[in-house]
Structures are given as structure tokens and as C-alpha cells.
């Protein structure tokens, strides 16, 4: 990093936007000299650089909350800005930090390519990579505050910062990344090992489930066998029931009952038929009983008619007339008492007359009627008899069948049937119960099988995880070896770097220090002065400052040496600026001269912020040929001078007044010395 230009806008006493300092980037004339008496802004310039790059201020920089120019605030301005242009790795950058009245500062870093500004992402990391923040106070060195640095224990941050300058960043980031990756693998391994525990539990669970399944399947087999047995038993009972009677007793009973009902019915019908017959007989009784009389009467009539006796062949009136006349037709006299008379008188009774004819007619009609009704009677009787016969036959059949059924029913052994029925019901109950048990066990078996499938799936995954564990263990081991290798290499480089840096510091000390002591770099790059015997040396403030400057310049020189190196593990070295505020304050003239001599040699770019007290003829003489850029700070004050000093400084025969009064404003401006 080579600083090119610093621009301050309303930053502390640097009011306005005219403060610009161009640093010397020349290889030979590598010193930028900025003159300024106390309070004019030298330390502010140093802090402006620190603040711009790191938002950091030196501890003795007072009123750190008041960075905006008071004069600007008076004029209503509410922000300040510091811009720092620099070159790094042949590229040009502009770092810019703005502070707003809110107290929030905004940092931006631009890469400048011709006229284009492209903002650099991760700007803080980028700056830290070039010059680590923890080393900033050494590169942007506040000489008057050296005692503060001296009191500090360098510590691990200091060591890491130096390692960063030495180009360890890549390898150290690699180590951190590998550790992170390994951490991830370790975590995964731990989880997988936990999983292994779960795996064992699952294996046990699987085994238990398999045992349960085997038992359940055995129970199922037994249940199915039981069911078959119950089915067989049921079949046996059913067969027994079937064999015991072809008819079911109940059915038989129903048949008996039915036959009985039919028997009663047919009996009723027979009774009805009998009654009907009786009625018929009653109806035709006269015919039955009169039939013979009628036939005999008709036969008699027919016979008498045939004999012409009926009706009598003589008429009653004739006979009566004869009697009355006393003469037979034959002429004989008919006298009473005579046989002829009696005979003829007897004939009167038998003689034909209308009454007799009427009686004969009626008798014949009656006889004929009886004869004809007898036919009807017989026909109806025959019908009734036929029906009766049918009913009687039906009754006989029913009675015969009923007798058979009753006989069959009487042959059924009800107790045995009841036993069989009970057995049948028991078998059916057992089959139902067994079916339920089988269903329950089937569900249990199904659940266990599902559980086993899940366990198998998990165990299968665990199988893959076993492979993963094995792989991860190898990865972990390999990565740990990588980390160890990288760390070993870095430690090796660090040790070599320490030797190189210590040699350079010792070289400086040997050359310029009055005392015969050496520097020893500790584990944390802490540097201590020791005697030949290794015992620590008490050092003065001046010696301490000399030691610090020697160390930082040696570091800068070492980093510069490594600039062209393109190692596989280390970041190439870099050019670093060395900005020193009051570099010679604590040094006596000899040490001032020595410092002024070795610093420009060791550093690619030196920026000295000097007051007249730091400036001496010896220093001037030593560095004047190396000054590439020179500025003086001029303070404008609004107050009258009264008895205050003008702070005059003579440079190259020209005299500069650094404090100007009655200027209307309170501000510091920079003026380039040509």
C-alpha cells in the first residue's frame, strides 16, 4: 500500500474542502514531511488516516465524538469526510469515510480504473488484509504515545496482525475454514454416533418385534387351527343333527301341528258333511220312508188299473140308481136282504166316483212325486257321500301322516338334539370368537410388520450412515492432517520470519544503540530487549521508541522484501506506509539522527508529522535529500493575536507563519512547500 493523497472535508480543525495532501510515492525521495506546531492538526491528520481506514482513533486524541469541524457546524454543516487514495498491487483505490451528524459513519472503498469507480465489496476485510487493524497503530505511529504502546502486552491479536502482514492470511484462513469444515464433520459424526445409539436401540426393537411377530404368527396358526377344529366340530354337530333325524324336530313339530290343524279341519268338514247329510235325510225323510208305500201304492194302482178295478168299472150313480130302482141291469129285482141286493149295495162302496178318482189321481201323483224326489235325494246323497268319502279319505291320510309324524317325533331324542344344538351354538360361538381373535392378531401382526418395515428402512439408512461415518472419519483425519501441515508450515515461516525481523532490528540496534543489547521476539511477537546473557534490559522512553521504530521498520522492510514472492502458502509481501506523528519526540539528537537515517532505508514510504521541537538540524541534514513532498499546517484564528505566538518556521530559507489571527474563521489549512 502506497498512500497517494489525503483529503479532509470539515474534519476537526480542517475546515472546508481544500485540505489535500499528496504523499510522496517516489522510491528515493520517499519521505513526506508535514510541519505543524502543537495543536495545529498533526495528530488529527494521523487520526484522519486511521479513522478513514479503520474508524479508529489514537487513545490520546481528545474529544473523539467531535469530528465535525466546529466552524462548519457554525455554518450549518452536519457532516465531515476523509478521503484517502492509495495504490495497492498496481491498482488504485479511494477509501472514503463520511460521518453524519447522527454519529453514523459510512465507509466506502472504490477501485479506480481510469475514470471508473467500482465499489469494492467487503471493504473492511480488504483493508484489513492489506494492513491489519491491529497493526494500524504501528504503521500509523503516534510517537508521543509510545509509552502507551510500550505498556501494552502485544498478545495474540498482535501476533495475528503481524502474521497477516507476513502474508499468513491465506493459510490462516484456510486453517480456519478447514477447522470449520471439520467442525461440521465432527458435529455430523457426533450426530451419526448418536444415530448409532438409536440404531442399536432399533436393532433391539426389531429383534423384539420379530419375536413378537413370531409369537403372534404362532398364535395365529393356532387360532386358525382352532377355527378349523371348531368348524370341523360344527360340521360334526351338523352332521349329527342331520343324521339324528332327517327332519328337524322343530320342523317335525311344525308338520305335526300342521297335520293336526288339517285333521281338525277335515273333521270339521266331515261333521259339516254329516250334518248336511242329516239335513238331507231330514229333507227327504218322507221320500225315504214313503218310497216303499208309494211304490206299493203305485204298483197296486197299476195292478188294479191293469185289472180295471181301479177305478171301478161301474159308476156309483148307476149302482145307486139300481139300488134305488131295485133292479139290476140284468133285470133281477133287488130287494133288501137278498144276496143280490147286498151284493149290489156292496158295489156302491167300490164303485167309481169322482172322489175316488180324485183320490186315485192324488195318490198316483203323490206316489210319482215320491218316486221322483227320491232320485233327487239319492243324487244329493250321493254327492254328500262322495264328498264325505273324500273327506274321510283325506282324514285318513292326515291321520295316517300325523300318526307317522307323531311316531317320528316320538322317535326323536330331544335331549340329544338339545345337546347337539348347544354344541352347535358353542361351536359357532367359538368360531366367531376365534374369528375376532384372528382379526385382532392379524391387526397386531400387520402393525408389527409396518413397524418392522419402518425399522428396516431406518436401519437401511443407518447402513448408509455407517458408510458415511467411515467416510467422515477419514475426511476428518485427512483434514486434521491438512490443518496440522498448514499450521506447521506457518509456524516454520513464522519462526523464520521472526529470525529475519529480529536480525534486522538487532542490526539497527547494533548500529545505532549505545548499549550492547539485543531484541528478542517472543511467542506473540512481543519484542524485548535483553542482554547477551538473555536477561531483560530496562529501557528508557527513547530506547523504547527506537526499539518500536526499529521493529516496525524491520517489519515493513520484510514485507517489502516479500513483495515479489509468490509462495504457494503465503500472500505476497506488500509495501506498507509508515506514518509517524512526532517520530523523534522522545529521542535525543544521536538517536534522532540514527532514526532519520535507518527509517527511510527500511520503509518504502515515510510520512513524518513534525513540530519544530522534533525538527533539528541533524534530522534535516539526514533526510533532506529524501523528502519528496512537504507541507506546513497554517492555523487561521478568528481571535486577535494579543500576546499569542505567530509560530514562525523557517524552511529552506523561507519563513512561514503558522498561526494567523483575526482571520474570521477558526480553521487549519495546509500549504505545500515547494
Amino acid at each position, binding site marked *: 500500500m502506497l498512500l497517494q493523497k489525503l483529503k479532509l472535508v470539515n474534519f476537526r480543525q480542517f475546515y472546508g474542502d481544500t485540505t489535500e495532501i499528496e504523499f510522496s510515492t517516489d522510491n528515493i525521495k520517499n519521505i513526506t514531511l508535514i510541519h505543524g506546531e502543537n495543536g495545529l492538526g498533526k495528530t488529527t491528520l494521523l487520526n484522519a488516516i486511521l479513522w478513514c481506514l479503520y474508524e479508529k482513533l489514537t487513545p490520546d486524541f481528545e474529544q473523539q465524538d467531535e469530528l465535525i469541524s466546529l466552524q462548519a457546524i457554525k455554518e450549518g454543516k452536519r457532516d465531515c469526510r476523509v478521503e484517502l487514495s492509495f495504490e495497492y498491487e498496481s491498482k488504485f483505490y479511494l477509501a472514503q469515510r463520511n460521518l453524519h451528524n447522527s454519529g453514523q459513519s459510512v465507509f466506502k472503498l472504490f477501485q479506480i480504473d481510469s475514470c471508473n469507480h467500482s465499489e469494492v465489496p*467487503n471493504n473492511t476485510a480488504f483493508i484489513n488484509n492489506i494492513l491489519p487493524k491491529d497493526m494500524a497503530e504501528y504503521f500509523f505511529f503516534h510517537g508521543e504515545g509510545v509509552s502507551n504502546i510500550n505498556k501494552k502486552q502485544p498478545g495474540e491479536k498482535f501476533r495475528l496482525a503481524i502474521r497477516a502482514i507476513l502474508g499468513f492470511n*491465506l493459510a490462516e*484462513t484456510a486453517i480456519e475454514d*478447514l477447522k470449520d469444515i471439520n467442525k461440521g464433520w465432527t458435529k455430523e459424526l457426533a450426530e451419526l454416533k448418536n444415530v448409532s445409539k438409536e440404531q442399536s436401540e432399533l436393532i433391539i426393537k426389531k429383534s423384539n418385534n420379530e419375536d413378537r411377530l413370531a409369537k403372534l404368527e404362532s398364535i395365529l396358526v393356532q387360532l386358525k387351527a382352532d377355527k378349523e377344529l371348531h368348524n370341523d366340530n360344527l360340521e360334526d354337530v351338523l352332521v349329527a343333527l342331520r343324521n339324528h333325524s332327517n327332519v328337524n324336530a322343530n320342523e317335525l313339530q311344525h308338520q305335526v301341528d300342521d297335520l293336526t290343524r288339517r285333521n281338525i279341519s277335515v273333521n270339521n268338514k266331515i261333521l259339516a258333511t254329516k250334518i248336511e247329510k242329516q239335513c238331507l235325510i231330514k229333507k227327504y225323510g218322507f221320500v225315504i220312508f214313503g218310497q216303499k208305500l208309494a211304490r206299493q201304492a203305485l204298483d197296486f194302482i197299476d195292478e188294479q188299473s191293469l185289472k180295471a178295478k181301479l177305478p171301478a168299472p161301474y159308476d156309483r150313480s148307476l149302482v145307486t140308481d139300481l139300488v134305488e130302482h131295485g133292479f139290476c141291469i140284468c133285470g133281477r129285482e133287488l130287494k133288501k136282504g137278498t144276496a143280490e141286493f147286498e151284493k149290489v149295495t156292496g158295489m156302491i162302496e167300490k164303485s167309481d166316483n169322482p172322489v175316488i178318482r180324485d183320490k186315485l189321481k192324488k195318490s198316483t201323483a203323490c206316489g210319482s212325486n215320491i218316486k221322483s224326489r227320491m232320485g233327487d235325494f239319492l243324487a244329493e246323497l250321493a254327492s254328500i257321500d262322495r264328498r264325505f268319502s273324500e273327506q274321510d279319505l283325506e282324514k285318513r291320510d292326515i291321520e295316517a301322516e300325523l300318526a307317522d309324524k307323531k311316531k317320528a317325533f316320538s322317535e326323536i331324542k330331544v335331549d340329544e338334539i338339545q345337546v347337539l344344538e348347544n354344541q352347535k351354538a358353542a361351536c359357532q360361538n367359538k368360531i366367531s370368537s376365534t374369528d375376532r381373535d384372528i382379526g385382532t392378531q392379524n391387526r397386531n401382526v400387520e402393525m408389527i410388520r409396518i413397524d418392522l418395515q419402518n425399522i428396516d428402512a431406518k436401519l437401511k439408512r443407518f447402513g448408509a450412515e455407517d458408510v458415511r461415518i467411515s467416510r467422515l472419519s477419514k475426511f476428518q483425519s485427512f483434514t486434521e492432517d491438512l490443518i496440522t501441515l498448514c499450521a506447521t508450515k506457518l509456524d516454520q515461516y513464522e519462526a523464520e520470519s521472526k529470525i529475519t525481523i529480529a536480525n534486522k532490528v538487532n542490526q539497527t540496534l547494533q548500529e545505532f544503540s549505545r548499549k550492547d543489547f539485543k531484541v528478542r521476539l517472543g511467542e506473540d511477537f512481543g519484542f524485548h530487549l535483553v542482554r547477551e546473557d538473555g536477561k531483560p534490559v530496562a529501557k528508557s522512553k527513547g530506547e523504547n521508541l527506537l526499539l518500536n521504530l526499529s521493529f516496525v521498520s524491520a517489519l515493513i522492510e520484510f514485507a517489502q522484501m516479500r513483495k515479489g514472492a509468490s509462495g504457494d502458502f503465503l*500472500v505476497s509481501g506488500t509495501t506498507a506506509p509508515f506514518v509517524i506523528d512526532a517520530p523523534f519526540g522522545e529521542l535525543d539528537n544521536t538517536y534522532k539522527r540514527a532514526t532519520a537515517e535507518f527509517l527511510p532505508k527500511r520503509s518504502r514510504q515515510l510520512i513524518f508529522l513534525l513540530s519544530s521541537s522534533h525538527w533539528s538540524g541533524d534530522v534535516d541534514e539526514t533526510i533532506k535529500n529524501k523528502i519528496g513532498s512537504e507541507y506546513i499546517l497554517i492555523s487561521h484564528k478568528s481571535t486577535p493575536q494579543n500576546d499569542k505566538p505567530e509560530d514562525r518556521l523557517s524552511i529552506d530559507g523561507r519563513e512561514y507563519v503558522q498561526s494567523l489571527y483575526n482571520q474570521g474563521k477558526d480553521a487549519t489549512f495546509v500549504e505545500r512547500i515547494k
Partner: protein
Amino acid sequence: MDINEIMMMLTEISEHPEILADTDTKMERVLKEIIKIERRYLYGMDSTSTARRKKAILDFLNEEFSTKEQ
């Protein structure tokens, strides 16, 4: 080590000076590749997030391990 052994070593070196050249172990080669990734992601065109850088390293290692396993 006696003088004869040293002489033998020197003879061998004079005949086969290439044995003095550094040869990277497999581990060193992998480490250098990782550093290359770091360089690319820290300072190169791929400089983005830490997560992506770590992923790139992880991917490289996985690939390396896979090759190694084969």
C-alpha cells in the same frame, strides 16, 4: 552416519540432483489447491461470501476424497 555414508549420499546427489528438488506430498498438493481457492475467494474475482468460499473448499475436498476412495 559415517564419512562413507556421507560420501555415498554426495555421489548419489551428484548423479541424481533431482532428488534434492522439493516434491509435494499428496497432502501438500491438496493444501496448495485449498490455498488457491482461498486466494481466489479472498482476493480474486470470486471474492464473495465466506459461506461460498467454504463451500468451494468443501466441494474440492469432497471431490478429492471421492477420487481418493476410487
